[in-house]
């Protein structure tokens, strides 16, 4: 099915949820409210002639430095593909700034589990009803969510694990070790 | 005087065996290397001939690390138990007519006893290291030895029946020096069971589960280093030689060959042992590893019934022919 046709059917099905849809380089995208995202995606997955059985990717976006009609601070982007029918569509769910949260779609695709964890990790968007919402790429005690636009490239503070490690290497200095192989001139052992 | 002579023989035996062990590792690395389109050790000496010596010297001088939470005394004793047990087993092996340290009547049983004792070393090493990988390796080893000890013992009962003795020299004598006299032919089922059990007993591929590198890092020897680690390897190679010797004695006619060798009677024995060693290595280069439960299944469901059937068959045939 043509991508835009899917978008139009989606609009007919959920008229209140769809903000707008567009075509870019031959790929159709639908911008939706985040409230009924699970219903929308379930409809896309289960409707016979659409049958989006493959969740290609799920990722977050921080819109802090992007202008556009109807853009909220965050969005979660779902790229869907139908292996059986060979068509695709992109769903962009707008998520508000204050305590960003959206419903989890793990019940539809088990693979969303780790993708949502990753989005939570890097953007701080919470996924309601997620079975195991923990950080996945970064350590548990990391401060901040690095892919937000207000997070500087160099980071804000040193990770506590790193400071501990540096502390430990300082202790090793007593025995003549130095990090990075810079051997210190050792005093004569008594 | 007798005691001094005995001590001299023991020293000679130990030295010769140690050299063999060292060069068995070289042999293995070279053969596997060539089987795997590479050369093996080439750097130390001509074609790497001094490599085993270099390895030995290196492991002597390496730091001997004992994990802080290991059970210290057991940890230290485990490799020694392994090595001692395996070395003791050498005492009853007849290398040629009369070339045997202790010609006792229960030679075969003695070797079984010693090789099971060696597995204590492995189990204790796994237990005392206080590491989970070592622990799992030790557990696997225990289960494996218990299962395969049985099938191995049973597989040799046929040989005992035919020879009418447990004395290893007597078993060789019973086979005579004719080619057809070898028990390989009448005991082919027994040999099959023995051969597979032998691989399992020595923790060799495809039954190297206690030290399966990709699963348990290095199994029971994970926490060992330096000389103690080397001792485990020595014990393993001596174990291989002992098993190969039993195979030679019980199935391939021991020191007997097509013609007697004048100055060095054990030549045929040594060649046969080397043949076994080569097959060990060949198998290592060829086969993947069994899984734990499959290993148990093979032992209990296939080998033990086969060995039992072999005993019944041998006994019946012997009764009928006699």
């Amino acid at each position, binding site marked *: 099915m043509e991508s835009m046709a899917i978008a139009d059917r989606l609009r007919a099905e959920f008229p209140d949820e769809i903000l707008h849809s567009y075509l870019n380089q031959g790929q159709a995208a639908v911008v939706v409210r985040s409230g009924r995202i699970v219903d929308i995606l379930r409809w896309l997955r289960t409707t016979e002639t659409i049958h989006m059985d493959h969740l290609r*990717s799920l990722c977050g976006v921080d819109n802090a430095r992007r202008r556009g009609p109807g853009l909220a601070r965050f969005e979660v982007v779902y*790229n869907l593909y139908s*292996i059986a029918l060979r068509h695709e569509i992109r769903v962009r769910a707008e998520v508000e700034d204050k305590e960003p949260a959206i419903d989890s779609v793990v019940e539809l695709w088990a693979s969303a589990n780790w993708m949502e964890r990753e989005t939570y990790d890097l953007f701080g968007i919470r996924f309601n009803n997620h079975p195991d919402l923990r950080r996945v790429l970064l350590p548990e005690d990391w401060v901040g969510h690095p892919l937000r636009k207000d997070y500087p490239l160099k980071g804000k503070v040193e990770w506590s694990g790193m400071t501990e490690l540096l502390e430990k290497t300082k202790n090793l200095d007593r025995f003549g070790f130095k990090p990075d192989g810079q051997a210190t001139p050792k005093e004569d052992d008594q | 005087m007798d005691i001094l002579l005995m001590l001299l023989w023991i020293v000679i035996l130990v030295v010769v065996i140690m050299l063999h062990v060292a060069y068995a590792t070289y042999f293995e690395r070279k053969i596997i290397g060539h089987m*795997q389109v590479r050369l093996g050790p080439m750097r130390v000496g001509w074609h790497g001939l001094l490599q085993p010596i270099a390895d030995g010297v290196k492991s002597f001088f390496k730091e001997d690390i004992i994990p802080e939470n290991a059970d210290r005394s057991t940890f230290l004793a485990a490799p020694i138990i392994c090595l001692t047990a395996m070395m003791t087993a050498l005492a009853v092996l007849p290398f040629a007519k009369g070339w045997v340290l202790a010609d006792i009547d229960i030679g075969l049983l003695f070797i079984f006893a010693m090789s099971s004792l060696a597995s204590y070393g492995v189990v204790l090493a796994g237990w005392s290291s206080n590491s989970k990988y070592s622990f799992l390796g030790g557990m696997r080893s225990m289960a494996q030895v218990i299962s395969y000890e049985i099938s191995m013992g049973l597989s040799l009962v046929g040989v005992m029946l035919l020879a009418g003795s447990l004395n290893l020299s007597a078993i060789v004598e019973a086979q005579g020096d004719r080619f057809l006299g070898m028990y390989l032919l009448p005991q082919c089922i027994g040999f099959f069971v023995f051969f597979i059990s032998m691989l399992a007993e020595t923790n060799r591929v495809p039954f190297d589960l206690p030290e399966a590198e990709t699963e348990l890092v290095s199994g029971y020897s994970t926490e060992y280093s330096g000389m103690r680690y080397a001792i485990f390897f020595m014990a393993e190679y001596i174990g291989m030689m002992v098993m190969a010797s039993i195979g030679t004695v019980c199935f391939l006619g021991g020191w007997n060959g097509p013609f007697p060798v004048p100055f060095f009677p054990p030549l045929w024995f040594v060649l046969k042992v080397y043949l076994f060693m080569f097959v060990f290595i060949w198998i290592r*280069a*060829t086969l*993947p590893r069994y899984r734990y439960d499959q290993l148990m299944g093979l032992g209990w469901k296939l080998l033990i019934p086969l060995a039992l059937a072999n005993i019944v068959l041998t006994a019946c045939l012997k009764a009928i022919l006699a």
Partner: protein
Amino acid sequence: MTRPIIKTETKNLEIPVADGEGDRYSLRMGPQHPATHGVLRVDLELDGETIVACTPQVGYLHRGFEKLAENKTYTQTLILTDRLDYIAAMANNVGYCVAVERLLGISVPPRAQYIRTMVAEMSRLCSHLLWLATHALDIGAMTVFLYCFREREVLLDLFEELCGARLTFSYPRIGGVRQDVTTRFIDELQRFLDIFPGRIDEYETLIDTNRIWLKRTVGVGKVTGEEALALGLTGACLRGSGVDYDLRKHQPYDAYGLVDFEVPLGSDGDIYARYRCRMEEMHQSARIIQQCIDQLPPGPIIGPDAPDLVMPNKAPARLEAGTNAYGTGLIKLIRDRDPYLAGDVYVATEVPKGELGFYFIADGNNRPYRMHIRSPSFIHIGALAALAKGELIADLIANIGSLDVVLGESDR
């Protein structure tokens, strides 16, 4: 003289004593472990050797590529893609270039398309050879490992001949490739293709019908097609379960629409089916490379609108000593290229591990507003828990090998 004693701070491991229900213990496999293919850590809860629960932990190799890409130009980010799946870096480069070309509407001349298809397939062979090598080693067959490395070595030499690098190539460029192929490269590649199918047969004689191999792989790590889809498996892992999904056929890019090949499908969805799929894929890759050599059209190797540092077409006089890249105007071309399109696009390519997708949001600048990498390894590791549950430790190792994960790609 006293030697300092450094004491390690290890706690007692509390080795379990069998007492009925509480007979479980946990084992941390990795990140330093011979069989976890990099720095994967798997937290296991074991009952004997049976896995009760399995929690993979990734992130040890996280380098923040997505954040970095937001601060680099499109061309600079190309170099990061080498470090994703470093075993098949060429396929990642191609995937990235295809995605950026789609985003910015850049055309690629046919010769470059064929060359890219060719190197991507060579890269697939590299990756599959390494996969077979390590997978077989994990299961205990060590000879296959060295046999595979023999062929991989030839391929790496070919890559070196082509672009001077053996691991991180950065050879494809946005809008084409960096240099043209030489006749020597083509000749050597042809010689390799002549012997390669025989070599695959050699590996197969070692393991294909080996009873132990079959025992270790048939029926282990089974997923049905539907489960595999839900778990997000792609590539050979999905095709081993009988789902016909190959982006080279579904959404052809580069010259894949112009060459003839088949997509091997399994049916059982176990480790053996995935193994067979990948072995067949190697045959098909060789076929594709052969066709690329035969059909390689003449022409330019880089498109006219490529925003890229290409080998300069200008007269050498302009590049004499003292001038730098700024002087030639090349950097300026990248910085001030006009116009960069805005919009978003998701483009996926079939890399050896599965579906590698790039989701770009462009806001008209010379660098992406957001780049998301859908890495197959990350999602495959996420599926590991489902595959390994209830099996033995040895099967977990076989499963990790069979999923064919690379941590550089997973952690990004």
